[in-house]
Every structure is written in structure tokens, then in C-alpha cells.
């Protein structure tokens, strides 16, 4: 039995030498005289053999020596004597001793050989020779010392590959070629590997059949005369990289035992190390190695999944992207734990499941589109956007064996895109309304939940209290809660920290992972603290709303339920929004101011109060157009002239400051002309000349009524210049009076003619601008008919004005484009009635012209 020993030739030589000595000594004994008995001398032969050979040879020689000694009486003729028995005993004892010597020597020799083998392998391991040299040297060391056939099978891609085969003897080439051609998998099928060393003391016919894949192979294996085998798993750095297969054949005739197996196990460790050091494994995995090296340098995260979905490879970028220190840490983390570390969503907002990932899809043999995933790291709250693409690696049967995932981090692109879209929408919202509170409320709603879970806008009031003009959160109950909180514990600009601080110094604040101590330090009231804690704030940003005049408000963004934290990019976006909102609010305020100025200006174009005119009562109505910034062109006036009171209602076409200036000019020109001339038509002609002389076209329409009270009667001289005619309400009936005339300001040669009528007590004369009849309702324009209907039955100036106002309120829909002026004249003084003077021609009632 047993192992590493001299070659058979030297063993045979030792036996031959021993036997030769026995024969020589026997010959000598025969040749010598009978009294010269040397029949015990063959005892030296086994000792000689023990020094040269192994116990087996020594035993053969010892047996031969003993036989020679036992048979020596044949030629010495001393059979049966004590002397004879002593000699036999000496040879026997000597043989036994020689055997012990041989055994001991063999043991020592084996140990020495094993030590040398281990040293040699260690040397190979340390020397780091070229891979090819390593295998050659390892084979040389193992064959024939330890085995008749040695093979190195190395694992690559989950498959075993035969790296080296070594045999010896004259048939070495044939054996090596035959073994190299065999698939190691056949061996594994016959001798399943469990990661532990396997010792097959006896390779029987059954196992040989199991090892052979076909008849040809079976014949080959049989030709080898396999006896025993040891399969040693090769380990390095905690993983199995392959197997060392040692076989004995009839060549050596040895069989492996447990002792040799134990040595093989130690040897396997060294061989594994040697292979690893030589870079053989990585060379074998060269494609993978090169790919790995290339992937390792990629900025894109790359992972490889095996068919069961588990990660078998990840580059450093993937590790970093998924929040791990390095690839090894990532690979040693179970996939579900990796997924659970994030709250992930698809681009449509649905929560991500493992089956949505393209890697799983391609492993299932499906097509997989690149998938956009938004992931919030639960621990850090960081938000990332990733595009995941997967490509299958097919096995030789065309089925997906691996999935290669490329994960591209598009967070920056996405953020920029979102920021742009968000700001664009915010810009539209900010421009949509001139009501600051409404605008800010809509902006706050826009920010939720895209930028934060909460958004609040605070503006300081005149007394320095922060007014929450907007609070947005998807849950109305939470909004209510926040409002109650603000009402209960209002902030003042002098307060420490928070929005007040931002309002004072204009510096934004960003706090991620708000510690509870911060809350406790900020708020002392227990109830308030409890409410604040209930919000579950994780991060907060407060940015100033900046306008040209400085900070006018503060916007607060809070992350709570989403658990995300804010990045510098988020802060930048929030600051941008703060600036835009600040500018918008300033614009809105300026508009309000302009609108106020416009109204003031408009009021300046109208008389402060209508004067007291003897015999008549006046009432007026002025309604500005919907757009309050533009000054309307409507005006009215009551002017005392030498010939009586002149009532004026006019309208300058166009709006805005130009129209306002023209209105002022028209009103004052008319006033001056009326006062000097005391004649309505002359006053209009004066105005016409003044306007016609202006460089650009300046036209207006005007209705002028001169009220002449001649004691007994009151007459009205009516002149209309492109203006809607006044309405006379008499005895409940309403009708238009006056002749139409040309607009003022177009043709300098134009003339106007008055229409005179006698006013009876209770008569109402209602002057108005086209804003009344042109006002827009659901059924079109208000028109002259509705005006007459509204005025029918009116009994006083106030009532007439009130009726028009009510009728317009009921009729109008939406903002009105034009302003509206009404001036109602009521004849109150009891006067003697002059029959037949109604609608008198102008010639009869003191015509002016």
C-alpha cells in the first residue's frame, strides 16, 4: 500500500540485489566444508534490501533468506540440531528487524518526500511564475510522486474546465490526450462534489462505467487500469476555484488511503494558492476579467444577475449608486434588502416592484424597455432618478443565463428638467393673477408634492406679524391643522430662527434630518411641541421672497411623509421660486397701486360733488371698466353759465393715460367755453376746433343740455355730438330725445344744432355714455331698448340711476371693457305749465343759434 515511493525499477533492483546476496551466500555455504556452516549469513540480505527498497521487497528477501537457512541442512547435513534451530531463529529475527527497518525508513522517506512536495508547491506559489509554467511544474511535482495521473480542473463561469493533465510512463501522451478530451462534468456527475475531499479507495467496474460517457471512453478508462482516486477541492480566499484529481493506476499499483487523502487535502490548499497566485483563475476567466476590468472603470453602474435573480457581479459605480461602500458589500447583501433600502417609484408614480425591473424581465425571456425609476433612499432621504436597461446573456441553448443591467443615474438631468418645467409652470401661475394671495396659494400648491410635502408662504403685515397667505399639503386636514397652528402660535418678524430669521437676513435655510432636540429647543410649549412632532418633519427649507426692495416674504418647504431630504439643487430651485414669487408679488402690488392711482385720476376727471342746481335734482353713476388700471374716458359735469346750468356727459374714445389727458382737456375746454359762451352748440364747436388742432386724431362724443329757467318754464336745449341721445322719462314713459350730431374733433368745420324741449315738473332727463348700451351680457349687448325699459316708471333722479345700476348688474356677464357714466336730471320746481311747448322747435324756445 501507500504512496510516494521509489520507482518500480529501483524496487525490483533492491529485490534482485537481496536475492542475489542470499543466493551468493547459499552458494558459498555449499562450497564450504560442512563444518564451516554460514547458513545464518543470509540474514544480512533483508537488511541490505531494507536500505534500498521497501518493506515488501525486504519481506521477499527475508523470506528467501529464511528459506535458504531452513533448507541449508540439505547441503550442510546438520538437520535437526540445536545449532540449526539457532541459525533459523537468527535469520528469522534478522528478517523481522530488517522489515521494521524498512518500514521505518519508508515512513521517514514518505514524510521527507511529502515535505519536499509541499515545499515545491509552496515555492511555485510564492515564485509567481507564468501560468503555463505553474501548471507544468505542479504536474511534474505530483506525477508520479503522488499519483499516476493528476488533473487540474478549474471552475469558470460555473463550469469546470480541465486546465492540466499529467501522466507518466511510455503511454503518458495517450493518457494525457484522452483525459484532456474528457469533460470534467462527467466526473462530477459520477462523483458529485460536496465541497469536501473525496477518497475513492477502490475504483470498481461500476464507477468506471459511471465515469464513462460512451463506449469509447469506457474502453479508454478500462485501458488505464484505474485503482483509486482522490478529488481535492481547491480553495482560495474562501471560494472553491476547482479540483485537483489524483488517480492511481496499475502503473504504480498503489491505492490511496486516508493518510494520503489527508496529505492531499493539505496539498490542495497549496495548489489552490499557487493557481490563484499565478493568476491562472483570472486568466481562465480572462474574458470575464477583462470585462470586469472594463466595467469596473465605467461611470455607469453595471450589475449582473444570475437566473435566480441574485447579483453575481456589480461594479464600483453600481455599489456607490446603491449606497454601498464597495462591490463586495453590495454582493453580500440579499437582493430584497437592497430593494428595501429604497422607496422606489416608476415614472408614472406607481411603486416599483421587483418584477418591474428589466433584469427580471429579460431573465424571464421577455422584452424589457429601459425603465425610469425614482428612488428615495430610506436612510438618507436622498432622491435619485435612474434609467435601468437590461440585456440578457444567453446560454448555449439560447435561454437567458444572465442579465446584465446598466443603471444610468439621470438625477441631474431629471432635476434640471423638473426644475425647468416647475419654474415654467410657476411662472405661468405667477403671471395669471394679480391677486397676491391667490397667486401664492397656487404656487404653493404647485410645489406640493413635487418639491416638498408641505409648502407655506408667509408675508409680514404692517405690524410685523407673519401672515400665512398660503399653506399647501395634499391632505386638507393637515392644511387645517397647520393653519390652526399658525393662528394659535403666530410668528413675528422679530422671532428667532425660522421664516422670521429668513425675512430679516434674507439668507435661505436648509436643514436635513431635523433632530428632535432642535424642535425641543425651538418650541417650549408642550402642546405646540407635540403638534410639531406630529408633522413628522424630516427636512425643511426656508427661502426668502426677494423683490427689488428686498425681502418681502418667506417660503417654507417641508419634507415629511415622503422621507426625502433636500439637496443643494432643491434649495437652488426653491430660491429661484422665491425670487420669482417675490417679483410677481411686487408686480401685483404695483398694479394695485396703479389701479388705485387710476381710480384717483378718474375721480379727478369727475366733479367732486354735483353742485346744487336750482329747480333740478341731479344724480350720477360712474362704473369703471373691469380693467382697473386703465383710466376710462367717460366724464360728466354740471357747469353754471350766464344763460343757465349746462349738464355735460362725454366720452373720449380710447383708454389709458392718453385718453385721460384728452378727457381732462375736453372737460375743461367745455367748461371754459360754456362759461364764456353760455351756449351748448357753441361750446361744442369750440371744443371741436381745439381737438381738431391737435397733431393726432383726438375725437370724443358729448351730450350737452342747457337748462334755462325763465321763471315760468324750464327749457332744455339738447345737443348731441356723436353721443347716444338722452332719455326723457315723463309720466312713467321713457323715450330718447335730441338730434344726432357729428363726433367732436374730426372735422374742424363741423356745426351742431340744439333741440329744445320744455321740462315739466317730475320730468327726468337721463344722460349716459355708450358704456351703458354697449355693456355685455349673456344675451348680447344691453342696448337702447333695455335702457328705456329700465327707466320706464322712474320718478326721481336717484331712482333712475339706481334702476340703471340694477339693470346693468343683472345683465352684465364678466368684466366690462368700457366704463359707464350716467347723469340724471330731475325737474323738481313747481312751474306753471305752458301748453303746447313740449318738444317745441328750437326756434320757438329761445334758440341760441
Amino acid at each position, binding site marked *: 500500500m501507500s504512496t510516494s515511493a521509489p520507482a518500480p525499477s529501483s524496487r525490483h533492483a533492491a529485490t534482485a540485489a537481496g536475492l542475489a546476496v542470499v543466493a551468493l551466500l547459499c552458494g558459498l555455504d555449499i562450497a564450504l566444508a560442512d563444518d564451516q556452516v554460514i547458513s545464518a549469513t543470509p540474514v544480512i540480505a533483508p537488511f541490505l534490501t531494507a536500505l534500498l527498497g521497501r518493506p515488501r521487497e525486504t519481506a521477499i528477501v527475508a523470506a528467501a533468506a529464511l528459506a535458504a537457512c531452513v533448507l541449508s541442512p540439505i547441503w550442510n547435513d546438520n538437520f535437526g540440531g540445536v545449532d540449526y534451530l539457532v541459525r533459523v531463529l537468527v535469520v528469522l529475527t534478522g528478517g523481522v528487524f530488517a522489515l521494521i527497518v524498512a518500514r521505518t525508513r519508508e515512513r521517514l522517506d514518505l514524510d521527507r518526500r511529502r515535505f519536499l512536495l509541499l515545499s515545491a508547491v509552496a515555492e511555485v506559489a510564492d515564485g509567481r511564475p507564468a501560468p503555463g509554467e505553474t501548471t507544468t511544474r505542479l504536474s511534474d511535482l505530483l506525477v508520479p510522486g503522488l499519483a499516476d495521473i493528476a488533473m487540474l480542473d478549474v471552475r469558470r463561469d460555473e463550469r469546470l474546465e480541465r486546465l492540466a493533465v499529467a501522466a507518466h510512463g511510455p503511454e503518458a501522451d495517450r493518457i494525457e490526450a484522452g483525459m484532456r478530451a474528457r469533460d470534467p462534468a462527467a466526473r462530477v456527475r459520477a462523483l458529485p462534489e460536496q465541497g469536501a475531499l473525496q477518497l475513492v479507495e477502490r475504483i470498481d467496474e461500476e464507477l468506471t462505467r459511471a465515469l464513462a460517457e460512451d463506449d469509447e471512453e469506457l474502453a479508454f478508462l478500462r485501458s488505464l487500469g484505474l485503482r483509486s482516486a482522490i478529488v481535492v477541492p481547491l480553495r482560495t480566499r474562501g471560494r472553491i476555484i476547482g479540483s485537483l484529481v489524483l488517480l492511481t493506476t496499475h502503473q504504480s499499483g498503489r491505492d490511496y488511503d486516508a493518510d494520503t487523502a489527508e496529505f492531499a487535502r493539505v496539498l490542495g490548499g497549496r495548489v489552490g494558492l499557487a493557481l490563484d497566485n499565478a493568476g491562472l483563475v483570472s486568466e481562465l476567466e480572462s474574458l470575464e476579467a477583462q470585462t470586469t476590468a472594463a466595467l469596473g472603470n465605467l461611470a455607469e453602474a453595471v450589475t449582473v444577475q444570475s437566473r435566480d435573480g441574485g447579483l453575481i457581479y456589480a461594479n464600483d459605480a453600481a455599489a456607490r449608486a446603491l449606497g454601498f461602500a464597495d462591490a463586495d458589500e453590495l454582493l453580500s447583501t440579499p437582493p430584497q434588502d437592497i430593494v428595501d433600502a429604497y422607496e422606489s417609484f416608476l415614472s408614472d408614480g406607481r411603486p416599483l416592484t421587483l418584477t418591474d425591473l428589466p433584469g427580471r424581465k429579460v431573465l424571464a425571456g421577455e422584452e424589457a424597455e429601459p425603465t425610469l425609476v425614482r428612488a428615495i433612499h430610506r436612510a438618507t432621504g436622498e432622491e435619485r432618478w435612474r434609467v435601468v436597461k437590461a440585456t440578457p446573456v444567453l446560454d448555449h441553448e439560447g435561454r437567458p443565463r444572465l442579465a446584465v443591467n446598466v443603471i444610468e443615474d439621470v438625477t441631474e438631468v431629471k432635476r434640471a428638467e423638473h426644475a425647468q418645467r416647475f419654474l415654467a409652470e410657476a411662472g405661468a401661475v405667477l403671471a395669471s393673477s394679480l391677486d397676491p394671495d391667490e397667486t401664492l396659494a397656487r404656487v404653493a400648491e404647485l410645489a406640493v408634492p413635487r418639491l416638498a410635502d408641505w409648502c407655506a408662504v408667509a408675508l409680514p403685515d404692517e405690524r410685523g406679524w407673519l401672515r400665512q397667505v398660503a399653506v399647501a399639503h395634499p391632505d386638507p386636514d393637515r392644511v387645517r391643522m397647520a393653519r390652526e397652528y399658525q393662528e394659535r402660535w403666530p410668528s413675528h418678524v422679530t422671532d428667532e430662527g425660522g421664516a422670521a430669521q429668513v425675512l430679516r437676513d434674507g439668507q435661505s435655510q436648509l436643514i436635513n434630518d431635523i433632530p428632535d432636540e432642535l424642535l425641543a429647543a425651538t418650541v417650549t410649549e408642550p402642546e405646540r411641541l407635540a403638534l410639531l412632532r406630529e408633522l413628522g418633519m424630516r427636512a425643511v427649507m426656508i427661502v426668502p421672497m426677494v423683490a427689488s426692495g428686498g425681502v418681502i416674504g418667506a417660503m417654507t418647504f417641508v419634507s415629511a411623509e415622503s422621507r426625502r431630504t433636500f439637496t443643494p439643487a432643491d434649495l437652488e430651485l426653491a430660491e429661484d421660486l422665491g425670487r420669482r414669487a417675490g417679483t410677481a408679488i411686487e408686480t401685483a402690488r404695483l398694479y394695485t397701486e396703479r389701479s388705485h392711482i387710476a381710480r384717483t385720476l378718474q375721480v379727478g376727471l369727475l366733479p367732486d360733488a354735483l353742485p346744487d342746481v336750482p329747480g333740478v335734482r341731479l344724480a350720477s353713476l360712474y362704473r369703471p371698466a373691469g380693467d382697473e388700471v386703465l383710466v376710462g374716458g367717460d366724464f360728466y359735469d354740471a357747469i353754471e353759465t350766464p344763460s343757465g346750468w349746462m349738464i355735460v356727459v362725454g366720452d373720449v374714445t380710447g383708454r389709458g393715460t392718453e385718453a385721460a389727458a384728452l378727457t381732462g382737456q375736453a372737460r375743461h375746454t367745455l367748461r371754459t367755453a360754456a362759461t364764456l359762451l353760455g351756449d351748448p352748440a357753441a361750446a361744442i364747436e369750440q371744443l371741436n376746433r381745439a381737438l381738431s388742432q391737435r397733431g393726432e386724431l383726438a375725437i370724443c362724443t358729448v351730450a350737452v343740455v342747457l337748462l334755462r329757467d325763465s321763471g315760468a318754464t324750464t327749457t332744455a336745449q339738447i345737443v348731441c355730438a356723436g353721443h347716444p341721445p338722452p332719455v326723457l322719462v315723463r309720466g312713467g314713459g321713457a323715450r330718447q330725445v335730441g338730434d344726432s350730431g357729428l*363726433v367732436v374733433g374730426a372735422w374742424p368745420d363741423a356745426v351742431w344744432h340744439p333741440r329744445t324741449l320744455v321740462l315739466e315738473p317730475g320730468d327726468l332727463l337721463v344722460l349716459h355714455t355708450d358704456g351703458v348700451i354697449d355693456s355685455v351680457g349673456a344675451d348680447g349687448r344691453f342696448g337702447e331698448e333695455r335702457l328705456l325699459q329700465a327707466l320706464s316708471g322712474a320718478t326721481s333722479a336717484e331712482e333712475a340711476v339706481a334702476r340703471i345700476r340694477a339693470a346693468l348688474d343683472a345683465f352684465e356677464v364678466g368684466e366690462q*371693457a368700457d366704463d359707464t357714466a350716467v347723469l340724471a336730471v330731475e325737474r323738481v320746481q313747481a312751474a306753471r305749465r305752458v301748453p303746447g311747448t313740449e318738444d317745441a322747435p328750437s326756434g320757438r324756445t329761445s334758440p341760441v343759434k
Partner: protein
Amino acid sequence: MDDDEDFRVGRRLEDGVAVVAPEGDIDLRTAPAVRSELEAARGEAACVVLDLRLVEFMDSSGIRLLVEAQLAADRDGASFAVVRGPAPVQRLFELAGLDGRLTLVDEPAQAASGERPDEH
């Protein structure tokens, strides 16, 4: 309120007459469009016609347009005519006293004949 979408203004050359034909309401909002068409028409032909047949409503902005166009024609020695519109539009002409100052016709073709009623 009149939407700008409900308003259109076309311009065409017809037998040497540039016809501007607004459709919808002429008011403060739509008047500038008509004004620019009238100006373009003046560059195209010595005879400009404003066809008001498809105009549903006109306010004082329209009056201003008509006055401008007439004054421009007078200044350039060109002719300007208006094709009468529906009753509300005609009523405005009356109120503004323009019937005596403008050439009112029933068809664009009538403008070419250069008929012009006497001025008041």
C-alpha cells in the same frame, strides 16, 4: 364678452378696390387689427372699402377707425367707402352723425363708381 377668436378680418383686391372685411365685433380689442388692414389697403389701392356686412357690433373704437380712414383718404386724395352693416352698426353711424361724412354703399362694387352723397 367678445373673444378674439370670434373675430376675423380679411382683405382682398376687387376690381382695383381694396376691400377690408371684418367679421365679428369691432371694439377696443379688435380695432387695431382692422386699423392695420385699412392701412395696408391704402397702400394697395386708391379706393378702399370697409365692408361692415359681417360686423355684428361696433363701439366708439369703430367710429374712430372710420374717422381715421376718411381723414386719411381726404388727405391723400383717395376714396374711402363703407358698405353698410346690420342695424346696430347703422344705428351707431346715425348717433355719430357720420352718415353725412362717409360714403355709404350697399356693395363694394358701388364704391368704384365714386358716388358720394352730398355733405351736410
